[in-house]
């Protein structure tokens, strides 16, 4: 840290002070404001702060925050101090803040928004880049995913020393990483297929069988994998099978865990030790936590796009467990609710369903069309009163989830 130029040191300390003020003022968790101020003073701050550290960048449409958390846990056996933007502040300012606040960390595990991978890869000269998945997401403001994959390809070809850990089961990810010199391919699974029916290389229809896929025309195909998720077990490079036994629920988190193990391998962490760290993770930035409200045990799940909803519906306990769905369409959610029609809600039939959020009418029309019975509620309080006792599962998109967290108290 002392090697930083004066201007960067000043930028970092002023930024750090702003973070503290922001937290004290109750305006947020302080994970962005410091970086915003610091970057304004010194635009090259991220590169300066990253210098001399081993940086891992984590990106993809879904699972970034959780995977970042899991990688940090898997690297814990190294005994090094690890910097991380653990609360999902995944743009340049959030990353700069995380690094600025951990001057002694020799390793940084950074969640990175999909769009910023090229510039952040250049700035941080990351040792490892993790590519999870790509699917439709908030298309009123996000880039088109084929375009993103193309930008990643270009960025990786300009970073020949970078080690890529990539999900071979997602064709678009496989294409993005296929020309990179060092890749650990992971079979992390892909439940959502609706954005990858066509070959990313030539556009022809892909043939699929299980997780395997091959293009009928140009023969682009799933690369051979080094790590694999099989059921709820991980298969390591030596072919040994071990149960994951995660505390986090759902198939998506098992995928994220296998990716984290592959990253741990790059750092020389033994799989047994890495697994131990993964199993200790019980909640991630408020997700999967259980909170009690007037005698009802509430579990909070976040789902931001169709692939995320598919995974969240998969995590639900079976009927007749009641569920509340909450949907907003503020800027961070995407102002367009069209994505509701990409989600198959029929699995919700046969249980009490409560519908809330600022765009509850959009959601209600969607459920009506899928013949799912539901009740519209004003908010989480009303749903809790209707449930009365027992458990309630809650799935919300981004700002709806945050609003419910606020109602339930930041302790959640």
């Amino acid at each position, binding site marked *: 840290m002392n090697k930083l130029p004066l201007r960067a040191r000043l930028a970092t300390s002023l930024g750090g002070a702003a973070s503290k003020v922001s937290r004290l003022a109750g305006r947020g968790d302080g994970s962005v404001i410091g970086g915003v101020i610091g970057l304004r003073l010194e635009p090259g701050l991220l590169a300066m702060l990253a210098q001399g550290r081993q940086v891992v960048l984590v990106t993809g449409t879904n699972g970034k925050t959780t995977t970042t958390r899991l990688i940090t846990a898997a690297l814990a056996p190294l005994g090094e101090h690890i910097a991380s933007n653990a609360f999902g502040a995944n743009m340049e300012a959030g990353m700069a803040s995380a690094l600025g606040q951990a001057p002694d960390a020799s390793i940084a595990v950074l969640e990175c928004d999909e769009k910023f991978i090229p510039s952040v890869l250049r700035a941080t000269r990351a040792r490892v880049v993790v590519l999870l998945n790509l699917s439709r997401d908030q*298309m*009123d403001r996000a880039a088109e995913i*084929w375009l993103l994959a193309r930008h990643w390809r270009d960025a990786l070809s300009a970073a020949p020393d970078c080690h890529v850990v990539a999900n071979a089961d997602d064709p678009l990810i496989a294409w993005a990483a296929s020309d990179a010199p060092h890749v650990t391919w992971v079979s992390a699974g892909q439940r959502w297929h609706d954005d990858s029916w066509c070959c990313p290389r030539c556009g*022809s229809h892909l043939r699929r069988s299980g997780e395997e896929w091959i293009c009928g025309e140009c023969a682009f195909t799933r690369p051979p994998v080094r790590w694999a998720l099989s059921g709820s077990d991980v298969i390591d490079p030596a072919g040994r099978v071990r149960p994951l036994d995660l505390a986090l629920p759902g198939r998506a988190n098992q995928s994220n865990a296998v990716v984290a193990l592959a990253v741990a391998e790059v750092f020389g962490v033994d799989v047994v030790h890495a697994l131990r760290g993964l199993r200790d993770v019980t909640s991630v930035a408020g997700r999967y936590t259980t909170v009690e409200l007037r005698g009802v045990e509430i579990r909070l799940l976040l789902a931001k796009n169709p692939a995320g909803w598919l995974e969240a519906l998969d995590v639900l306990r079976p009927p007749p467990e009641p569920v509340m769905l909450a949907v907003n369409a503020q800027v961070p959610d995407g102002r367009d*609710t*069209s*994505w509701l029609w990409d989600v198959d809600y029929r699995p919700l039939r046969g249980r009490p369903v409560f519908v809330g959020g600022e765009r509850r*009418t959009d959601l209600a029309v969607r459920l*009506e069309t*899928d013949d799912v019975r539901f009740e519209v509620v004003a908010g989480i309080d009303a749903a809790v009163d209707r449930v009365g006792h027992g458990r309630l599962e809650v799935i919300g998109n981004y700002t709806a989830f945050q609003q419910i967290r606020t109602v339930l108290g930041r302790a959640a």
Partner: protein
Amino acid sequence: MSGDLRLVWVYPDLLSTYGDRGNLLVLERRARLRGINVECVFVNSDQPVPRDGDIYLLGGGEDLPQVLAARRLRADGGLAEAAGRGAVVFAVCAGYQLLGHEFGGADGEPTAGLGILDMRSGRGERRAVGEIVADVDPALGVPALTGFENHQGVTRLGPDAAPLAQVSVGIGNGDGTEGALAGRVLGTYLHGPALVRNPGLADLLLGWVVGPMRPLPPAQDELALTLRRERLDAVAP
């Protein structure tokens, strides 16, 4: 009115970016509630387009898939043939653009479309993203369209296509008009599940196939009409 209705979703593997399935589901529901048997046919881009559908649906797509879809549909010929014999075609966004003589390709270059609608599209200066409201040609007897647009296209209609509507909020074709209509071929920049908030438009398409229909029982239409009102109120000037 109990004859079979064949809904053909054209190339969901290429032309389905954001909720396009909604149009299929809405048509299916509104037909079934009137006792009409519905068959939904999904045609991927490696399959021939059936010639005997009643309503053909085309969704949105990114630039490259749009170019590929246009190329394959031209080579296949099935959609043009069906439209030529009077089948209903409903296309949104990228699917709408490729029905014209040409549209802007991956780098904005002119790319050959199907020529089913007399129109040409190119790439505009700015992306049109947001709620759109447009008053439908009164001859169609359909209330104002409400939807979401997300495109960078600019479309000019030729003499053989009529604008579907006049824009009151949003961009649409870029010259104050929105969408295009020729016979039973209808296209719009309202993307994704455009028929969800416009049940009148859905019934227009169904009526073209099965003839006059009774209205739905009010309870079955109430939610959709509430949603329409909410969205129209939200953007009212």
